[in-house]
């Protein structure tokens, strides 16, 4: 039974409130409120982080983009900085749920909620993002990729820890990115598949590529074999098709009665990867 709801103004205040026990952080609350109603989350106190000004920033510091924990999907999606320096993330955030959901749900919350197909997480992993974590032991950092423990399970314990921000290098010229999504309708739908690509070219060759796909496993998956394979290759149709074919070995989507068979999604994944690569290469070559 919920007995208290506090809105601290500082990160220290948030941690102090958590220390008193039986508490949990709430940001947008889009998932948490439903879990509480369904009895999935039992908690006595909610610590709302929306009044902490330092958590509401989107900024660029020394070439790194920092997005605070209280920043909503819509703020990310419409940020000029993100649209310019990390378009893959702006696009991913724009596809979440509906405008109302994007106006409340935070990007960091989406990552910590650890759903296999979290759009923002898929993009952030491709961007090589790292989370900044505060707890009673001080500050630590973990790549977003490593935050996932399993379906709906994060390494972050929101009753003790606060992710203050997520940070990743901004994209430079010669880099390109893409976010491709297949869903059963244009809004209010979880993805059947989503793919994020970040690529760096040197000349007409691929310097390196990060390719993340979901939901093809309990957490977003880096197509490391395809990434390796494409390194140093010429940007052309042949490379794109070979890379798209190579992702299959690392994708094991399960059969979903609601969102398509594993067989279908595995097969059509290659199309999405192909389209993602074409878009990212084009952007990098601009």
């Amino acid at each position, binding site marked *: 039974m919920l*007995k208290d*709801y506090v809105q601290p103004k500082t990160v220290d205040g948030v941690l102090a409130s958590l220390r008193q026990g039986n508490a949990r952080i709430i940001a947008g609350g889009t998932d948490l409120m439903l879990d509480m109603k369904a009895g999935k989350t039992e908690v006595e106190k909610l610590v709302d982080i929306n009044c902490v000004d330092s958590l509401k920033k989107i900024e660029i510091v020394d070439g790194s983009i920092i997005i605070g924990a209280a920043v909503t999907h819509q703020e990310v999606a419409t940020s000029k900085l993100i649209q310019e320096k990390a378009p893959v993330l702006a696009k991913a955030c724009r596809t979440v749920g509906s405008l109302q959901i994007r106006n*409340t749900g935070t990007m960091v919350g989406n990552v910590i909620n650890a759903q296999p197909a979290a759009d923002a997480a898929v993009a952030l992993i491709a961007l090589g993002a790292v989370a900044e974590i505060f707890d009673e032991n001080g500050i630590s950092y973990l790549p977003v990729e490593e935050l996932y423990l399993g379906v709906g399970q994060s390494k972050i314990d929101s009753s003790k820890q606060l992710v203050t921000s997520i940070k990743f290098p901004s994209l430079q010229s010669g880099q390109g990115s893409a976010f491709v999504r297949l869903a059963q309708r244009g809004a*209010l739908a979880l993805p059947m598949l989503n793919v994020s690509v970040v690529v760096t070219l040197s000349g007409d060759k691929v310097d390196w590529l990060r390719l993340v796909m979901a939901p093809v496993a309990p957490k977003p998956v880096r197509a490391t074999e395809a990434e390796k394979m494409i390194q140093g290759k010429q940007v052309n149709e042949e490379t794109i098709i070979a890379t798209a074919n190579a992702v299959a070995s690392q994708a094991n989507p399960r059969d979903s009665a609601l969102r398509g068979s594993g067989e279908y999604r595995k097969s059509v994944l290659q199309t999405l990867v192909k389209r993602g690569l074409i878009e990212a290469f084009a952007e990098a070559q601009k």
Partner: protein
Amino acid sequence: MAKTVLKMILNGKPVERLVSFDDTLLDALREDLGLTGTKKGCGKGECGACTIIMNGKAVNSCIVPALQAMDAAVETIEGIGTVEKLHPLQETFVDYGAIQCGFCTPGMIMSAKALLDKNVVPSREEIKEAIAGNVCRCTGYLKIEEAIMAAAEMMQSQQGK
């Protein structure tokens, strides 16, 4: 049941109400404040019938904790127009046949208002995006979009004056 006082600026006026810690903003509006214009279609943020504007943004009040509205400016369908002077959106929703059963209407109008408050020259795509989270099962959305376009034009000419 543990309760506390929620203070907010509701439709331009300060209000204080005792709410439960686990109340949603929709509970507070409908049950505690008697503002039943805002509808509950699913209780899960999946249909938009409960859409209100909080600090200038359209949100699903059914999944916003009531206490997250502390000190916030909250607008509901009851606060945007009067019988004597309907809001341009109310006017055009009526005149363009955008209203059938009327259950999605309050949320739909609030989503549209949040858009037009920031942008009185929206494209058709921007309108669609703004109301994509508002399910309407009656109209097929077409007349709703036309009404929003028409309201935008009304607001442009009002602002031009």
